[in-house]
């Protein structure tokens, strides 16, 4: 095995060195124009894609040469188990990727860390490791695609998309990439056999079939959605249900409040409606949905901000901003929870928001800070309760100061330099369903409208609705209007992700459920809630119909494909559980054989005349 490993290294050593040097130069050059370490998630996704593509290309080159019949025999026909041969190739590739991909990244990061004042955290090295692992992922996918007998093998590319492309902590990201690579290695092993043109044994079929089903599931959703959107119907933009959520979202703010108050039985409702205009209404545009959690593998939100010549970059290791004078390159020190020079750590990477009066607020997930006019000093003015997440800065309406969290809407009042709770309103529906919040100043106080939507993946059997509250000057909050919203789309359309294949939908959702991506959760919601939602009856009917149809079709296909009875039963049960994607996987993995009987009359006539072989 060691010899094969060394042989493979020798084969690509010059290419790897050239790639490493070119990679180093490109990284150094790009770093001059775009600070990759503080670039956004989209840039990092693009990098991930390019590195995966590199690995994929390498696999196409390597396995493309090995899969030629004569070279395949040369590789496989030797006194080594195929696991050892594959291990040699994998280890060689791992070494090459380490040299050509990971090493230049580590060199660039280390150089920045030691020779500049730029922020380089441990997570940046972890990010480089993820990029190297993604290159390996591309290579493993490429190997499987090249060696698998089916042309549909490219669907394996969906596995890293489902499993790994999540904005999670560095350690979680590395774990996900390692798990993904372990699965892909197993898949590659199932096709890395001398007789690679035939179907593997039953046990080896299972992981490959599952990956294909996952790919078909995503493909079905994509193609189905695209086609359905082309057909005229209520699913198209502009054709939404009247009195629905989308219609409400398109309204002007005063009109939305008017709609919310339309059925109000309050004696002053007519006066409020008359008072509403563009001048005294506003919408809260900046509801915070996600915070960049600690040690995030990529970047999210406000990683940097500028103050004059100084550029402040958030360090996840210190949970503070570090300053750099962009003209002189001098170190400007730290910007912590107390402001410039303070060393207090933030809870999360903070978000800066300005209110209607122009005051600057800094929110870090659990704490609200007020910044001075120069933005150099911060004052802790409000602390959220345990388990509560702040979801906005201060919302000004007249003299009132409001604050939204994932649990409640809080009315604040000044108290000794900080802000104290005057009164609070528990959110009537889950925070995740909250679409928008509008406020209006009227004679009797402040009107607050909360517009809720249907979450396509979280129905819970509840109707979307709009609720309007009045906050009096005395701090009393009461409901003054409500209206039910009609569903914008048919239930089958809204639930399409589920009824196509409930188990696969759960599988796709599992990484998000198991990992923390910084999304502000619904208050008191279970981690497993997305998997345990109630579904409408129509969605259940559609799911069961699809499963039965897929199972019956698989029985018919299995007979035509001359499958063994046990395999037929296994596939029928799989299709019954997984639905249509499993049927498509069966069609790919067990095609109907095309056998031709050849008639050679001339040879036959000869055979009649002679006894050609003495031995026979």
């Amino acid at each position: 095995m060691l010899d094969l490993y060394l042989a493979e290294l020798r084969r690509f050593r010059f290419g790897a060195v050239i790639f490493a040097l070119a990679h180093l130069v490109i990284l150094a050059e790009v770093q001059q124009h775009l600070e990759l370490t503080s670039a956004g998630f989209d840039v990092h996704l693009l990098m991930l894609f390019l590195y995966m593509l590199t690995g994929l290309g390498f696999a196409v080159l390597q396995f493309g040469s090995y899969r030629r019949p004569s070279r395949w025999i040369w590789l496989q026909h030797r006194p080594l188990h195929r696991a050892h041969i594959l291990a040699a190739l994998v280890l060689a590739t791992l070494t090459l990727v380490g040299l050509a991909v990971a090493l230049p990244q580590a060199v660039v990061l280390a150089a920045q860390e030691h020779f500049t004042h730029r922020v380089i955290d441990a997570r940046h090295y972890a990010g480089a490791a993820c990029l190297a692992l993604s290159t390996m992922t591309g290579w493993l996918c490429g190997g499987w695609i090249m060696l698998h007998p089916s042309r549909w093998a490219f669907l394996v590319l969906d596995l890293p998309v489902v499993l790994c492309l999540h904005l999670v902590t560095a350690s979680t990201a590395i774990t996900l990439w390692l798990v993904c690579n372990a699965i892909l290695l197993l898949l590659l092993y199932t096709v890395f056999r001398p007789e690679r043109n035939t179907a593997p044994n039953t046990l080896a079929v299972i992981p490959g079939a599952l990956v294909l089903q996952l790919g078909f599931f995503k493909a079905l959703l994509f193609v189905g959605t695209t086609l359905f959107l082309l057909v005229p119907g209520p699913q198209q933009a502009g054709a939404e249900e009247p009195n629905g959520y989308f219609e409400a979202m398109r309204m002007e703010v005063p009109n939305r409040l008017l709609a919310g108050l339309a059925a109000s039985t309050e004696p002053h409702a007519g006066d409020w409606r008359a008072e509403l205009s563009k001048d005294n209404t506003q919408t809260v545009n900046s509801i915070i949905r996600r915070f960049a959690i600690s040690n995030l593998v990529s970047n999210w939100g406000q990683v940097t901000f500028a103050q004059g010549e100084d550029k402040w970059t958030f360090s996840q290791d210190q949970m503070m901003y570090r300053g750099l004078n962009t003209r002189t390159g001098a170190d400007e020190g730290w910007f912590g929870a107390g402001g410039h020079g303070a060393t207090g750590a933030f809870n999360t990477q903070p978000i800066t928001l300005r209110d209607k009066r122009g005051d600057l607020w800094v929110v870090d997930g659990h704490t609200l800070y007020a910044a001075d006019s120069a933005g150099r000093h911060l004052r802790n003015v409000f602390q959220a309760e345990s388990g509560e997440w702040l979801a906005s800065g201060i919302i000004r309406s007249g003299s009132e100061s409001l604050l939204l969290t994932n649990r409640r809407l809080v009315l604040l009042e000044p108290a000794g330099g900080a802000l104290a709770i005057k009164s609070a309103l528990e959110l009537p529906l889950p925070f995740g369903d909250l679409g928008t919040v509008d406020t209006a100043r009227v004679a009797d106080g402040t009107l607050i409208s909360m517009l809720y939507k249907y979450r396509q993946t979280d129905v819970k059997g509840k109707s979307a609705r709009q609720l309007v509250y009045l906050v009096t000057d005395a701090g009393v909050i009461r409901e003054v209007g409500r209206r039910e919203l009609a569903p914008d789309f048919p239930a089958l359309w809204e639930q399409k992700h589920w009824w196509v294949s409930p188990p696969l939908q759960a599988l796709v959702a599992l990484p998000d459920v198991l990992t923390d991506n910084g999304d502000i959760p619904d208050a008191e919601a279970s981690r497993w809630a997305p998997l345990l939602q109630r579904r409408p009856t129509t969605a259940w009917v559609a799911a069961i119909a699809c499963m039965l149809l897929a199972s019956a079709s698989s029985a018919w296909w299995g007979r035509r494909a001359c499958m063994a009875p046990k395999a037929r039963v296994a596939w029928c049960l799989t299709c019954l559980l997984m639905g249509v994607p499993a049927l498509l996987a069966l069609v790919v993995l067990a095609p109907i054989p095309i056998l031709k009987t050849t008639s050679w009359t001339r040879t036959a006539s000869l055979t009649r005349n002679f006894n050609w072989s003495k031995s026979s």
Partner: protein
Amino acid sequence: MSDYAIDCDGLCLYYKHKLALDHLTLRLPRGGIHAFIGANGAGKSSLFRILLGFEPASAGAARILGHDCTRLTPAVRQRIGFVNEEHTLPDWMVVRDLKQMQQRQYSRWSDGRYNEVLSHFNVEPKQRVAELSRGERAGLNLALALAQRPELLILDEPTLGLDVVAKRVFLEAILYTTLDEADTTIIYCSHQMDEVERVAENLVILERGKLRYMNGPDDFCGRIRLWGADFLFSAPNLWDLPGVLQVQSIEGRTHIVVFDQDDSFGARLKLLGAQSVQAMPLGLDRAVNAFLAHGHAGAGSSNLRTA
């Protein structure tokens, strides 16, 4: 231990929607050099792919050195050498490193045999495989295969594309190095009858996936004869006669190649009007040519029906 190096029973293989092997039953005894002969597409390479476990049979069973071909272990593979026409070797490796790699993998490796075979070829240990000529590459490939001291060595058209000198050296290397290994079985697949005549002790002729003949080359030549006949006018239809493989008219004389026909065939020709008849033996090249041409796919239009 099985008495057979190769044991196939009712072997069928559909390859690209064609029947490449058609219920092939073949039992090849151990020891000696067996020449596999057949036209292109006769199923030789398909048979080797099945034997080495690189292609599953559509039907039937195949065993190699007594082991099921679908379950060849590394230990069994160690006992089987394979040299193909392309002489596939890693171009990026140096000869010395390649030899060391193979040496470490094969426990029965013979350094003496490697050096002996390679001494026939002008190959330097420091040369890269990519720098070798086709003949040198073939020599290196053979040296590597023979140094493994395999119990069964499959040579699939190993001299294809070699020049005359390289071909001679290659064959001599096979002959010299196999003299001291009586238990080694060599399967030699070639279209070159002079090579076959020189090395083969047994002849296996495949045609369209079926076994057509298996015995010694001398026996084969003995069963095929060429009859010359002079007919006064045009020759009658001779294809209805038993055993006719080929009929040609050359300068007014009709040449008929027949299989397994004794002197009574001359009497039949005379009965059909031949004024004079003459029987003569055929060389292996022409005998095989006539034998294979009879069933060849392109033989219908140019099947020498010139009589």
